[in-house]
């Protein structure tokens, strides 16, 4: 009798921590304990806040990202007024980095949102219906992924360049990146949907007469939450890298609008005069992408049902 109650007590004690919590609640709890992921999130949030309050910061410091000063070119970091120095045209480097961050982050976030929307929608539909739709989408994915992404973007940006004869705007870049980046998400979501659609609750939903759209978007979609969040973090990271590479090659964001990528375009000529112009933009790309990858990894671990508290 005594032994039995001890067992029950032990059982309760073990369970009391996790009982009654959904997978998402469990994941959030694990995330709160994951210091590295929290640190990475903090860094990204701080970077985003700094970038988007660029007008306030530059006003407070009395600097401008566009004002050129011929007598103050290549000032080193730590100069009066210009905390991070100035560039080849005497523009304030910090101000340009902040505004560039705005551009780079906005493009990456919106493009990731777009590609994720396309990827998730196509993934659910192909996974759910299968058959000919699945074949067509798979053919499209095979085609898109067999052209190295950068070359595909090169054609698109060359078309966009000639379309307007003006530099491609944010919007066209976001659309190009978003419409090409969905294939990975579609593959993952398709796989998940394939296994989800055989579950009992989907069969019950069918049995009570739920329409396919209702099943796809109210029963399957919420179960893809963790997959989507992970994909979002990784996508934003790799899109920042892609945008930076394109802008560096002179085919993405066009000067005078600064982006972290195009600020590095001419940096080979600055090697002897202003090394800070080579270091800071790249460092910011690196830190942001690294943090996003760490966040993606952290969320994956947190949602992993086999991981222990």
């Amino acid at each position, binding site marked *: 009798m005594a032994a039995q109650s001890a067992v029950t007590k032990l059982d309760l004690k073990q369970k009391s921590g996790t009982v009654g919590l959904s997978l998402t609640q469990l994941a959030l709890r694990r995330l709160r304990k994951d210091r590295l992921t929290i640190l990475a999130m903090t860094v990204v949030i701080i970077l985003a806040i700094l970038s988007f309050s660029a007008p306030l910061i530059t006003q407070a410091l009395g600097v401008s990202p566009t004002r050129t000063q011929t007598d103050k070119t290549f000032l080193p970091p730590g100069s009066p007024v210009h905390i991070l120095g100035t560039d080849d045209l005497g523009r304030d480097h910090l101000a340009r980095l902040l505004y560039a961050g705005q551009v780079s982050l906005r493009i990456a976030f919106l493009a990731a949102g777009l590609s994720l929307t396309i990827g998730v929608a196509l993934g659910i539909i192909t996974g759910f219906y299968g058959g000919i739709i699945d074949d067509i989408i798979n053919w499209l994915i095979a085609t898109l992924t*067999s052209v190295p992404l950068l070359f595909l973007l090169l054609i698109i940006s060359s078309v966009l360049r000639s379309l307007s004869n003006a530099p491609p705007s944010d919007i066209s870049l976001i659309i190009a990146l978003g419409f090409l980046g969905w294939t990975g998400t579609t593959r993952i979501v398709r796989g998940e949907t394939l296994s989800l659609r055989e579950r009992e609750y989907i069969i019950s939903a069918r049995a009570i007469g739920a329409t396919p759209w209702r099943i796809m978007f109210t029963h399957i979609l919420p179960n893809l939450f963790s997959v989507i969040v992970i994909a979002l973090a990784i996508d934003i990271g790799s899109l920042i890298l892609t945008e930076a590479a394109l802008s560096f090659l002179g085919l993405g964001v066009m000067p005078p609008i600064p982006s972290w990528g195009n600020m590095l375009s001419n940096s080979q000529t600055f090697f002897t005069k202003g090394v800070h112009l080579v270091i800071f933009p790249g460092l910011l790309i690196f830190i942001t992408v690294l943090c996003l990858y760490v966040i993606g990894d952290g969320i994956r671990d947190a949602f992993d049902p086999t991981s222990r508290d």
Partner: protein
Amino acid sequence: MIKYIFRRLVQAIPTLFGITVLSYLLMSAAPGGPAKALTFSANTTPQQIARVEAELGLNDPLPIQYLRWLLGDDWMRWDSDGDGIADGAVIIPLDADGDGIPEPPGNRRGILRGDFGRSFFYRRPVADMIGERVAATLELGISSLTFALIFGIPIGIFAAVRKGGAFDNVTRVGAVILNAIPNFWLGLILILIFGSWLRVLPMGGRAPSSILSGYPPIYERLEYLILPTLVLGGSAVAIWSRFMRASMLDVINQDYMRTAKSKGLSNQMTWFRHGARNALIPLATFLGPSITGLLSGAAITETIFSWPGLGRFGVQAVTSQDYPVVMAVVIIAAVSTVLGFILSDILYALIDPRIRFN
């Protein structure tokens, strides 16, 4: 086996077809298109533009233009009596523009027969210019792949056998860092350190610029290859080592590993003779995707290091709106990717007897 290879090649046809249609549509989406790029000058008359358009066949319907680009037009419109005027035609009517004068016979052979047209910018056959640059890209690609394999595979093996140990953790962090570094920035930093500050390695190029004709043998200009290989192969090391680690971890838990150990083999012997050899098999499937990665990376790496290869050629062509060159580079990249995937599937099937060809 031959049947399997044949089937894989046939399966690739829809993909290749899709690639050609996609890139052709994208290119023709540019308004004004090639004619505008060719006649870009303030004092070009509309008549001149119209003549260039007619010469390029831009007045024909889009499917015919596509067919001409893909298969050439020497069979569409021909000259049987040798007077320079077309007298026979299929698909395209003899007098397409209706001005009463038959056009000259076609002379394009189409990309399927290796005719990529002429560069707008250099006015030379694109195929010749591609031929001059393939060797440089292959050189860099092969050296980067070798670098990635030489470092990636041993790192993966050691990380797997000491899973959770210091080496595993350090290399894991290293792999994430290498993935997150923008590789053009890594290139710039390496040039800054080794080329500009220490002056021990050249800042770019493929050979000393004093050489005018041809390149010296590769062992005389290895120093030019070091930095580009580090940049292009660096992120590949990260990917290969993670892949090898995962594959090795799968193998380590197999029964035959326990058997090998229990019959008294040393740890090293089991890991390398029984473990690594089997863990290498799935890596064959990864060769195809890694070709894509190398080609994509080449565009950036070649541009930073002024490496005279296809990637840099493609980037320059986009900037100068040299469509035939852009198309050629894209098609070549796509075809080598598709072939790479097929090759790695075949390789996988060849070395792993468990894979059946049906």
